[in-house]
């Protein structure tokens, strides 16, 4: 029995640990464009989005074209994000400003995983030069890459 006592002890001296952080750990919003019939719309013009920040502004989506869904970063803990949508082609350039209001929740997985924030979108406001309307489709912003948070309906050109 004493032999077993020490043998078992030796076995358990060798141990291992694992780090289980989520593979997809990007928290961002997704906007999908729709036409007036409610069908998904592929952008024919070029879209650039800039964030209005503490030290000026920075491009968060650069010259996107031919897409129906665009990912847009969301701030960690600022109560309201300000985004400038610039839609343009060789003939025109239109700017809309979007204000996204939200609640921010610190998210913790493990001490081995980077700190992150999840969010609940509470309100959205926008100017209506190019945008006709924006609807909150799903207010929960987390690691889920498949969630579409906003439906954007552009104005119909004459």
């Amino acid at each position, binding site marked *: 029995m004493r032999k077993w006592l020490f043998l078992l002890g030796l076995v*358990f001296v060798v141990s291992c*640990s694992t780090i289980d952080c989520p593979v997809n750990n990007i928290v961002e919003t997704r906007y999908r464009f729709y036409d007036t019939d409610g069908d998904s719309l592929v952008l024919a013009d070029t879209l650039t989005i800039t964030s209005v*920040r503490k030290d000026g502004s920075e491009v968060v989506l650069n010259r996107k074209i031919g897409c129906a869904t665009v990912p847009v970063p969301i*701030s*960690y803990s600022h109560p309201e994000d300000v985004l400038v949508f610039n839609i343009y082609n060789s003939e025109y350039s239109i700017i809309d400003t979007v204000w996204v209001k939200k609640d921010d929740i610190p998210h913790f997985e493990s*001490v081995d*995983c980077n*700190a992150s924030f999840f969010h609940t979108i509470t309100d959205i406001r926008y100017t209506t030069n190019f945008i006709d309307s924006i609807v909150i489709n799903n207010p929960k912003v987390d690691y889920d890459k498949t969630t579409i948070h906003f439906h954007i309906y552009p104005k119909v050109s004459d």
Partner: protein
Amino acid sequence: MTRRPFISISIRRLAISLLLLSAVTATQAQMKFFTLQKDSIPLFRGFSVSFDLVGAATLALSDYGQYEGALRINLHDEWFPIVEVGLGKANRDDEVTRLHYKTSAPYFRVGIDKNLLNNKHGKNRLYGGLRYAYTSYKVDIARPELSDPYWKWDAPYDIRDVSCYYHWLEAVVGIDAQIFGPFHLGWSVRYKRRIAHSKHDFGNTWYVPGFGTDDDTKLGVTFNVIIDI
């Protein structure tokens, strides 16, 4: 045509007989498992107290662990009702993620072990047992100087004094060897399974006092210094 009902009846009778036989055998085996060995040894054989060295060593050498002691009653050297009480602690600053995690709380387990050896009254024992465990604890999680990569705003990341609870079960296998007199040493290996826990907006807790780092299931080990009283 007339033989088929007789065959089916025979098969049914055989099946019922086998079922009854197996049920009786299982019941007899169960009764034998739970019945005390008949001999001249009294039912109450005393107490033992123990202290776990693995948890204490883990706490001394790393940033989490526990101090744990146990009181075990010896019933006829066969059954051992046990209460384990401990203080689990974690105080970690991760160098990479710069996350700080702190908790300190008591926990307890109650359960029973059975001596699985044929020679129940020998110097050594092989245990199998079950535990129910519970802890109620508070956690502080913080990340200093977190700056938003896109917006550059400072982002306060501070989860403070959040109350949590955790219920779990443990299946235990252990050995206990008499070294001299009332002094024993023993190992136990535990399979832990969470049965209920508090849920929070912020996600999971990391270290749970008595359970270890959070997961649905976990293997654990103790090395006990045991003294018979």
